[in-house]
């Protein structure tokens, strides 16, 4: 019996680690927004802070109603459209997060750095469903490799606050 103990323990440990190492289930966004269909208008029309602010921003209904006078045919029900256009906030779920100690500004990267949105967010113009998880995994190496390549500042205090 004892000779099986070690392999069993190893198997259990591997199984537990395996389960915890799996990426979390994708988040279900409140509206089945189709990025591919909207790609021609550009990212900044809806994510207004991407060019001019620190945060890109996630649009609310007032952004939709600038183009859509009535409920779009697909992706959202009439009832949900009435809800959000009458002032109920759209409960988008955040998929890209930066730790509190990172000072990131979109304007610095899209303006001075002349980076395309896709460099960090992946090509959203091909996506027909809203992202349930971050399209690209952003870690400090992602930032630093680009900073090194482009000759941007590598001073720790330049990004960490």
């Amino acid at each position, binding site marked *: 019996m004892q000779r099986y103990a070690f392999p069993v323990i190893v198997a259990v440990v591997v199984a537990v680690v395996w389960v915890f190492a799996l990426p979390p289930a994708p988040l279900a966004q409140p509206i089945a927004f189709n990025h591919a269909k909207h790609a021609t208008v550009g990212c900044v029309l809806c994510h207004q802070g991407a060019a001019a602010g620190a945060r890109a921003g996630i649009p609310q209904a007032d952004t939709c109603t600038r183009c859509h006078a009535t409920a779009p045919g697909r992706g959202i029900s009439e009832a949900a459209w009435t809800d959000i256009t009458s002032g109920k906030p759209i409960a988008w779920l955040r998929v890209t997060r930066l730790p509190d*100690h990172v000072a990131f*500004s979109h304007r610095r990267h899209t303006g001075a750095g002349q980076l395309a949105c896709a460099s960090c967010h992946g090509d959203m113009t091909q996506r027909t469903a809203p992202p349930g998880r971050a399209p690209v995994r952003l870690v400090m190496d992602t930032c630093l490799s680009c900073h090194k390549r482009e000759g941007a500042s590598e001073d*720790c205090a330049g990004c960490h606050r």
Partner: protein
Amino acid sequence: MARWGLVIDLDRCTGCQACVVACKHENNLPFSTPETADVGRMMTWIGLVNAELPGRPGPSALPLMCQQCDRPPCTDVCPTSATYLNPEGIVAQIYPRCIGCRYCTNACPYAVKIFNWTTPEWPESMAEMHNPDVSQRPKGVVEKCTFCHHRLITAREKARAAGRDLAPEDYVPACVQICPAEAMVFGDLSDPHSDVAALAGGPRAFRWMEELGTQPKVIYLREGE
């Protein structure tokens, strides 16, 4: 490359401590209570100390914050390089890299590096009042004055977006901005035309504990005759 420095005129300083309040508010420092003061764990990055100055009958109030030394004793002892002298002369502290060993707090002769003993807490009504440009440091790391480095980052970005160079008035730390007596002057010491460079080279200028050879970039002006 700029070398940021601060001049404090002790002749003008009234000891009102507006700088202390402004610093706490700007840098998301939690309130200190009588209890935390009793055990010597007040969270302040700048404070008034009693200083015996030559030619003065009694002790003078001297606003003391990180002296942003050119030869900082704290950076030499940091085992993780969490604290270092950045290219513009600011002694930076990278909080996620800090392991809280407190070597730097012991090495600093000015005792201006503060260890975070507790998770910072604020009244619920202040939840929306934090400065979003500054992180809330967790328990177990060492904190310090950074000359409001986040303001430099923001100012530089704004200037660049407007297509111009950084102007001297674009970047001042919160303590300098608030000082009602205008006792504090901030600027680039490497610019010979700056006010700080002129004052730092004047006859009233001295550095606190300069005999230690730390070469601070906070310069005090002796009270005049």
